[in-house]
């Protein structure tokens, strides 16, 4: 699996914010750095299919060789992690994970087993029925990652997902995320203003603004 950004250009009111061509191989990380307001989150929104109509954009996004630029967000398979874990507050941790598991042949107990296995992997064994609000910041971050992975994405889009974690937790979660992505051979597009994130990712770095 690979993610290709082919001559991406994003403009706001005629001014070009972003101009980028890049290719991210399986398990690789492309880090996009820049101060706030440089449009790095806009790039993620464009790739994921959430670009605000105020912007205009051109260029092609290819995932696994397929052009996804015209697809609606829910068919792109570009799973996104945000600054906050965004666990749905009205669902239990387990329901959050089940929401992500794809329908189809995974019926009933099998879906539940998938969710439980994901929790085990994230060190959250026994958290299935818990209220997300009762989890620590690190636990929420791991649950959010497992949720995204259960949706079987073909690429991972990270919007400063570590910036709100405290320092000693940050590196652990970061390593966990990159490790999981590498195992699943997912291309990762990471947006951050923290140089440590880029160092840890160890891939290409693009600086905006």
């Amino acid at each position, binding site marked *: 699996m690979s993610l290709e950004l082919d001559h991406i250009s994003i403009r706001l009111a005629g001014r070009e914010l972003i101009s980028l061509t890049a290719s991210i191989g399986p398990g690789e990380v492309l880090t996009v750095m820049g101060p706030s307001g440089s449009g790095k989150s806009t790039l993620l929104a464009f790739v*994921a*299919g*959430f670009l*605000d*109509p105020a912007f205009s954009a051109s260029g092609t996004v290819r995932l696994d060789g397929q052009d996804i630029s015209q697809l*609606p*967000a*829910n*068919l*792109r*398979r*570009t*799973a*996104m992690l*945000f600054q*906050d874990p*965004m666990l*749905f*507050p*009205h*669902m*239990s941790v387990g329901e959050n994970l089940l*929401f*992500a598991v*794809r329908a189809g042949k995974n019926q009933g107990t099998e879906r539940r087993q998938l969710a439980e296995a994901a929790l085990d992997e994230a060190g959250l064994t026994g958290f299935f029925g818990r*209220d*997300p*609000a*009762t989890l620590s910041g690190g636990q929420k971050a791991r649950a959010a990652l497992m*949720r*995204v992975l*259960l*949706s*079987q*994405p073909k690429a991972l*889009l990270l919007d400063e997902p570590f910036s709100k974690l405290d320092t000693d937790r940050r590196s652990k979660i970061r390593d966990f995320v990159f490790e999981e992505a590498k195992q699943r051979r997912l291309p990762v597009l990471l947006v951050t203003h923290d140089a440590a994130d880029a160092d840890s990712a160890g891939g290409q770095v693009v600086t905006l603004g």
Partner: protein
Amino acid sequence: MLAAAPTLAILVLAGPILIGLLATALPAFGYFPVLGGENFSLQPWRDLAAMPGLWRSATVSLVTGLVTAFVALAAVAAFMAGWSQTRLFRSVQHLVSPLLSVPHAAAAFGLAFLLAPSGWLMRLVSPELTGFTRPPDWLVVHDSLGLTMMAGLIVKEIPFLFLIALAALPQIRPRDYAATATSLGYGRMAGFFHTVWPQLYPQIRLAVFAVIAYSSSVVDVAIILGPTNPAPLAVRLVGWMNDPDLKMRFVASAGALLQLGVTAAALVLWIVGEKLAGMAHRKLRVSGRRFAREQPARIVSAGAISLAAFAVIAGLALLALWSLAGYWAFPDALPHSLTLDTWGRQLPALGRPFAITVAVGFAATVVAVAITLACLEFETRTGARVKGRALMILYLPLIVPQASFVFGLQLSFLWAGLGASFGTLVLAHLVFVLPYVMLSLTEPWHAADPRYARAANSMGASDNLVFWCIRMPMALAPILVAAAVSFAVSVGQYLPTLLIGAGRWPTITTEAIALASGGDRRVIGVFAFVQMGLPFIGFLVATLVPAVAFARRRDMRAAHA
């Protein structure tokens, strides 16, 4: 489907008003074949002008609209200026919010029970202070200037304007501005009026217009508290509309247009007043006067708003007490005994109106919430935003007086062969509940964090799935509050129920008003108490359901606490 929702909303909001006004205008000029009016003429206007006391009726309506809006707005503004960010402010806020759900008629009955010569205040001081052993022959309720009617409207419009202003306040950072003005030596109230008020007023202006329109054309409160000889214009219209002589329908139509003119005139006068006040305000602003000695004004403002809240609450307590009263002679302050006899006797009479009230309110609410959610979801998906002019349409049913178009709407239903049916009644209520549902749901819907939906989308969830599983359940609390508001508004509808229901669909409200002239306080107490209790139950459900559903979801409770 979804793309049709905004159009449907505009049709519901504006359609009945336009049809109603047209079907009022035609008979007002003599033409309405169904009623035997084959030719255009000015005869209805001549007949209308010949009605005794017509100008006095119109003047009372006009003055009531302006005075009610001015006093209620002044009370709200002064209290906000003097007490924002104090403990007293927060307690008044908690006290006033539930009062919004009290129907106008129940509040008016309560006020009558409080203020009448044989009312509770008089009993409290009699015979010790007054020497009265029987009620004096004073015209307090139904006074010819309409003062009690205005008081009844003011105490109900204060909570309305207060909550509208409260919702608009956070966007304009009142604390920063007020602090700046205070640091320059301005009094707290002066600082508020110079810095916050000019930004706040434009945001609540349409609501003030709605108060003017409502008060200048109100029927139920006017029947309960207003002057009788002559009655305010809208009350007389209803009499003509229900007159067995079909010719009176033409006079009523002309009168309905006159009502439209009276309300429009009140609005124009208000706008002129706005301009004058704005000029005076600008002069004062650069005069350098600090108004630092404001303590008396602050105390008066707190007293005014507390008095209004007390009047409504005491009135409601009196309704309950009268419904349970056994023998209760003047001037005793309390009944000799309490009994459930009145309730027992009225229970059979309550049944059908109760069922109709609940069914109509429920149906109108479900439709209104569905239309509103469809509009909001359409907005969310397309990134469109409702702008100024669309907001005007939202306020249309609140600003065009009911008395001016509901009668025409009834005539057009008649003309279309649609009699008084459950469906037409629900449709008529829908016109008036939809604006409230939209007004109360739009803000919380927009406030939701869009990243939840994006997270769901990026995991492969379709827009429909995101709506049903993420956006809607997360907005459950505000949706239920909007539904409760809608139900309360529906329960309180008098004129549309009376006219569109044509007497065949009695509700608690129409029955309660019908009792007004009889003056049996125990029976009125029962009906008015039920009228007040229904919206209250609605709000109770709206509070309890999310609390139970999300009992183990801490962030869902925090988000809407």
